[in-house]
């Protein structure tokens, strides 16, 4: 049965080639990518079952004698990641087919979307299955390349600007990864995880610590751990909604997975607890404070994404079985929830023509379905009982209290505070975008002072002071970008209008296409299922964590040579 292991990588790659050849027949393209991703979901489910029943599934590619060749390993952790990511990518694909990649994608080459998306899926699967460092590097490059293309679809100005930063940062981290690989090879003469696990123990401490820090910094860039997270909120929100959703769900989690794998398998004797915990705390707090300050839903969600990476790093940093188990559960929960939220934001943009909190209002009346779709994952993100976000956080906090060092307790407090601030951020969005009426939204925007205007009938007592590109009025400082947006709303001739004006002029699209709502609802349903099966699932993540901490199941399965 081990021939199943390479399929999640091979099938999407074949699919990418096939869809590229079918680029003139969009319908056939859609069916091919749909069929491929359904197959990947099924295979991942089978692998999950087998990894849980019979231990890690190993394949040595190209019939080389172990340990010379390239190995693919699906242990409990990999299989779970694979299944969750496969389900999420399938949903996003259906959603993007429903969206038709139209709207602002008119000038984008639609035929490129499917092949690139499939390469991305292959890269993500390969990263979860890779059994050696260099294969991990190659899978990173695969998914990064696909993400470069998807991020700059259409080559509009904002996307090129965001893409520039994204590409340069990721190329730098890839170079650093190569340097780490060279250093690891020079020190040990091997790149296979299982062999490294045995050889790194014999190295002097200083050497192994250097290798560990090199790898950690590399993966921290990919996982967006503060202070290496500043590229993320600038690049993700500019992409089309389904692309942002899949990036937010999967790409950073691949980095988290790599940190988890390296920490548990290669450097079990040097957990670096203090370093990781401080990084986790700062990531949580800074990320969520950034989220509170945003006036655009997409940017707000990007910051919550950075913030919640902190929870996973916290679990890894605890370096106990309970902590790792909580981190694994949280990764699985967070992939689904963050993707679902971005898909909902895509729906909001489609329905109301904007994601800016200055322009939105009254969405609850306009589209009750949308309100429910936003409310459930938003509350789940904040960790309201009984949803899976709450359970995942409880697992992590419990693990932190079990460790009981002052730093761990500080992190537990930080985690609770972050959770409350997340609730504040999403509740603020909810109140502004869904609860107030469009008229209120419009009047609020109208009431903002406008730069360069003298006092007039509307604002008789305005004293405007400009200060270094910032505008002060009535004891408040306003960001110039917000005022600029408000001015566009006020200006009846401006091309982009807010929701109130769109409603008044009857310019809104009538209904959301069902083909976009259903996949979003399905994904949210999937995330609610996590709550229902939380018991068995925590059992599974506990077993996965035990495997990771013991290391023997992995090493035996790989080095005794999987059946070929």
């Amino acid at each position, binding site marked *: 049965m081990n021939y199943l292991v390479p399929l999640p990588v091979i099938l999407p790659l074949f699919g990418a080639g096939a869809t590229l050849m079918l680029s003139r027949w969009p319908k056939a393209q859609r069916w091919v990518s749909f069929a491929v991703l359904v197959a990947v979901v099924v295979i991942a489910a089978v692998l999950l079952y087998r990894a849980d029943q019979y231990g890690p599934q190993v394949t040595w590619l190209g019939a080389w004698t172990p340990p010379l060749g390239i190995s693919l390993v699906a242990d409990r952790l990999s299989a779970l990641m694979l299944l969750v990511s496969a389900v999420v990518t399938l949903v996003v694909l259906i959603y993007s087919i429903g969206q038709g990649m139209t709207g602002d994608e008119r000038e984008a080459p639609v035929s490129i979307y499917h092949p690139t998306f499939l390469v991305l899926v292959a890269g993500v699967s390969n990263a979860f299955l890779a059994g050696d460092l260099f294969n991990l590097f190659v899978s990173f490059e695969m998914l990064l390349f696909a993400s470069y293309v998807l991020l700059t679809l259409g080559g509009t100005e904002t996307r090129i600007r965001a893409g520039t930063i994204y590409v*340069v940062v990721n190329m730098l981290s890839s170079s650093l990864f190569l340097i780490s690989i060279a250093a690891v090879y020079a020190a040990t003469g091997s790149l296979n995880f299982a062999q490294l696990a045995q050889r790194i123990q014999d190295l002097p401490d200083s050497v192994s610590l250097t290798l560990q820090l090199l790898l950690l910094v590399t993966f921290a860039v990919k996982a967006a751990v503060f202070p290496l997270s500043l590229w993320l909120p600038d690049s993700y929100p500019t992409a089309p909604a389904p692309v942002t959703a899949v990036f937010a769900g999967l790409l950073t989690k691949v980095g988290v997975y790599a940190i988890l794998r390296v920490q548990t398998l290669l450097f079990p004797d040097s957990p670096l607890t203090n370093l990781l915990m401080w990084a986790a705390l700062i990531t949580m707090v800074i990320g969520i404070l950034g989220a509170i300050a945003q006036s655009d839903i997409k940017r707000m969600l990007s910051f919550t994404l950075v913030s919640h990476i902190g929870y996973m790093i916290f679990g890894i940093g605890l370096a106990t079985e309970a902590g790792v188990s909580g981190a694994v559960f949280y990764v699985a929960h967070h992939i689904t929830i963050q993707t679902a939220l971005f898909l909902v934001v895509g729906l909001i943009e489609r329905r109301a023509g904007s994601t800016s909190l200055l322009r939105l209002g009254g969405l609850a009346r306009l589209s009750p379905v949308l309100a429910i779709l936003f409310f459930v994952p938003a509350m789940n993100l904040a960790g309201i009982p009984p949803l899976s976000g709450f359970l995942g956080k409880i697992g992590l906090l419990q693990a932190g209290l079990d460790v009981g060092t002052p730093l761990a307790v500080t992190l537990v407090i930080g985690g609770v505070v972050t959770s409350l601030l997340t609730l504040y951020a999403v509740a603020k969005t909810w109140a502004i975008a869904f609860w107030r009426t469009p008229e209120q939204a419009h009047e609020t925007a109208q009431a903002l002072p406008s730069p360069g205007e003298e006092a007039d009938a509307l604002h008789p007592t305005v004293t405007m002071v400009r200060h270094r590109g910032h505008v002060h009025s009535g004891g408040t*400082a306003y960001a110039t970008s917000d005022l600029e947006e408000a001015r566009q709303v006020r200006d009846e001739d401006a091309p982009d209008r807010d929701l109130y004006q769109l409603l008044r002029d009857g310019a809104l699209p009538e209904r959301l296409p069902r083909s976009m709502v259903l996949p979003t609802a399905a994904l949210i349903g999937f995330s609610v299922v996590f709550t229902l099966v939380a018991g068995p699932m925590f059992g599974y993540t506990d077993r996965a964590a035990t495997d990771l901490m013991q290391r023997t199941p992995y090493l035996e399965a790989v080095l005794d040579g999987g059946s070929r």
Partner: protein
Amino acid sequence: MSTNVSLILTASALIGCGVYLILERSLTRVLAGLLLMGNGVSILFLIAGGRAGDAPIEGKTDVADMADPLPQALVLTAIVIALATTAFLLAMAYRSWQLNANDDVQDDVEDASIRRLAAADEASDSHDLATGGQDDDEVTEEGA
């Protein structure tokens, strides 16, 4: 394992120049920097492969005299990836030039707003506003 000092010097020079160029504003120079750095990293791999030796071909060379083939394979892969990335970045630089007539890496949105907020904070005392919102370093006579 014996190491080759000249290779180490070459690699560090290349990576150093690469980093210097990446700190530039223009995307084309950043690209040149990434290329230099990529070459430096490839040479690092050759160092990691140990001493020089003969071609690693079974039956032609004794195993004891062979060079380590694995790092060379890794370098090949890295070169291919670097080539593809270079092509992509060039296309992006060209597109950026088409749109803006320059290929400078722009300030990101967050930077700009942080700068604005910092300015707002500095000016939050009423004295500063009373002076008409001049910069702090412009000391006014009336305020003194």
